Structure formats: structure tokens, C-alpha cells
């Protein structure tokens, strides 16, 4: 399982990005994206912004769950009250090479791990917890007087905390 997490500002501008792998089921926390896929991830993620705009008014929740799927890439979204989007792209392990054929094999082998089935309630819950923790730290980061709205988040402390949240829940 590999993850690509990005925070998108109100002008659809990226504020923060972070790639990581699962730490559950003996994962080492390293992403296993193919080299070409890493660039593609950014496009996949940003292209789902249109769908975010479609679904954001349909329910009152901040957490919008899985909103988009591109081959084996699933996109979960969390909207902050200030219209900043947290997007998480998750990709089950066996398909890290980019092919679609391995998905079935992966689901039988890793069926108990978080994320093997990206739309299961357990995965949704884990991602929700991850988002909530990031949200809490995001609020602290933007409370810094030297931070301006829609500015890139460069704080190393924030990055550490996102890393910690990823390790804890995903």
C-alpha cells in the first residue's frame, strides 16, 4: 500500500505534499510507487478536484470518503471549513507497478490489511482518523503569525506530525 497525500489551497494551488507507505502489516513506511507513476499521481490527484466540487455540497460532512478512482488509485478527500482540501491517493501494493491485473491477487493475499479493500469501512475509518489528526495539526500550523493564507506549508514540525499520523493510522 502506497499513499500520496496533498493539501490543496483555495485557489487549487498545492500547499503541501507527502508520499509514504503503509506501516501496518509489517510495512516499512516507504512508498512503492513506480517512478513514472509518481508524476502521474499529481495529475490524478488534481483531476479529482472537479469531483470534490461536485460532491462537497451534497453532504454536510468534512470527510467525503473515497470520491474518485483512476485504475487502482483511490482518492479520499477531506475538506476543511476554510475550503482547503486534503487529498489522499491510495494504491494497493501489488499494483504498484501500475498494471491493473494484480489487484485481484493482492486482495486475496492482503485482505486483512488496512487499505487492501480501499472502500471498506475499516479503511474509511483509518483514513478519517488520519485526516482528523492532520486537520488538527494543520490548524496549529496556520495559526503561526508568519503563515499567510494559501502559502506553501514549509514547517518541518508539520511534516513530522503528518509522518507520525501516517505511521499511526495507515
Amino acid at each position: 500500500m502506497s499513499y500520496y497525500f496533498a493539501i490543496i489551497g483555495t485557489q487549487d494551488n498545492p500547499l503541501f505534499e507527502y508520499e509514504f507507505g503503509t506501516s501496518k502489516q509489517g510495512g516499512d513506511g516507504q512508498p512503492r510507487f513506480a517512478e513514472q507513476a509518481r508524476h502521474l499521481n499529481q495529475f490524478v490527484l488534481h483531476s479529482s478536484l472537479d469531483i470534490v466540487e461536485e460532491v462537497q455540497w451534497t453532504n454536510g460532512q468534512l470527510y467525503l470518503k473515497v470520491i474518485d478512482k483512476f485504475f487502482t488509485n483511490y482518492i479520499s478527500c477531506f475538506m476543511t471549513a476554510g475550503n482547503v482540501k486534503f487529498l489522499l491517493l491510495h494504491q494497493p501494493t501489488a499494483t504498484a507497478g501500475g498494471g491493473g491485473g494484480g489487484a485481484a491477487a493482492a486482495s486475496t493475499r492482503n485482505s486483512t490489511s488496512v487499505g487492501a479493500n480501499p472502500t471498506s469501512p475499516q479503511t474509511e475509518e483509518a483514513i478519517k482518523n488520519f485526516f482528523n489528526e492532520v486537520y488538527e495539526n494543520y490548524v496549529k500550523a496556520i495559526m503561526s503569525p508568519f503563515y499567510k493564507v494559501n502559502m506553501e506549508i514549509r514547517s518541518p514540525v508539520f511534516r513530522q506530525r503528518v509522518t507520525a499520523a501516517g505511521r499511526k493510522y495507515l
Partner: protein
Amino acid sequence: MASSKASRLGEETRMDKVNAELVVLTYGTIVAQLCKDFDSDYVEVNKQLDKMGYNIGLRLIEDYLAKSNTVRRCSNFRETAEMIAKVGFKIFLNITPTITNWTSDGKQFSLVFDENPFADFVELPDDGRAQDELWYSNILCGVLRGALEMVQMQVEAHFISDVLRGNDTTEMRISLIRYIDDELPPEDD
């Protein structure tokens, strides 16, 4: 013992409270704006903060004396330090910095801030200079300088470490320069 009396005074003095985040954000905005106005000339920002604090201190001492019911002069500088830490900081910022590192002549001491209500959420700009040049809470030095000047003590105060810079503690050094004998008109600063 004088120190327990000071703590009691600090505890007993009732002050109106404001939301901590209001203080953090207001002060933070001032510092950030100064940094912008002076083009990140942090030495100048420190100076300005100190000057602002000085002007606050000149007036704040009156408020302090009125609210804290301190009827008596401090007999020595050690007692003054106790009153600053346990009454002054307690009633205005609701913190009690620790007094340490006295010099043997009793004219210099350090205030160590375990918590700093101004610095919540703050991360200094990562331009490579702020970490070495900016004293974020420098206004406090000015406040002490101004307030003590009004009660006939000329002091020099400056920060020597700050957790925001990555130091382990936030420490302010205060040195008594002299007791002012005659009431001088405050300089037009």
C-alpha cells in the same frame, strides 16, 4: 518568607481574563507586521518591540501597583525579582517564570519561562536569519525596563535563549544598572 508572600499576592490578585488565542494572534500579527515593514531587518524589529514594550511598561507599572496592593517598597533587588516573577507575570500573563542564575553581587538574574503565552503556534520564518536574529518575545524586555524605570530602577534586559530558536529554554537576563536617585522625567523615546 518573602517569596511565599509574593506567590500569595500573585494568586490573590483578580484580573479580568481574555482569550489566550486572542493574545497569541494579536501579538503575532504585530511581530509579523514589523518584520514586513522593516523588510525582515530583525535587529530593527527587536529594537521596535523593545521600544513598544518600554512605552507599555511606563504605564503598566501604575496598573500593577494599583491592582496588586503592594504597599511597601522592595528592600532589595532579590525581592524585586520575586515580585516581578510571582506577581507581575502572574497577574498580567498568568505565568510564573523561574528566577535563577543570580550573580554573587545580587545585581543580575535570569527569568526562565517554562511557558510563553505569546509563542503558542509560532514558528519563526525559515529564511535562515530569523532563527539567529529575531527575539520573538522581545516586547517583554521593554516592559520590564519601562516599568522598573518608573520605580527608580534602571535595568537592562535581554533574551539569551528562546525555545522558538531551538534552544532548550526561554531565558531572559536582567541586570540592575543603578537605582535612580532623583525622579527624572522619562526620556522622550
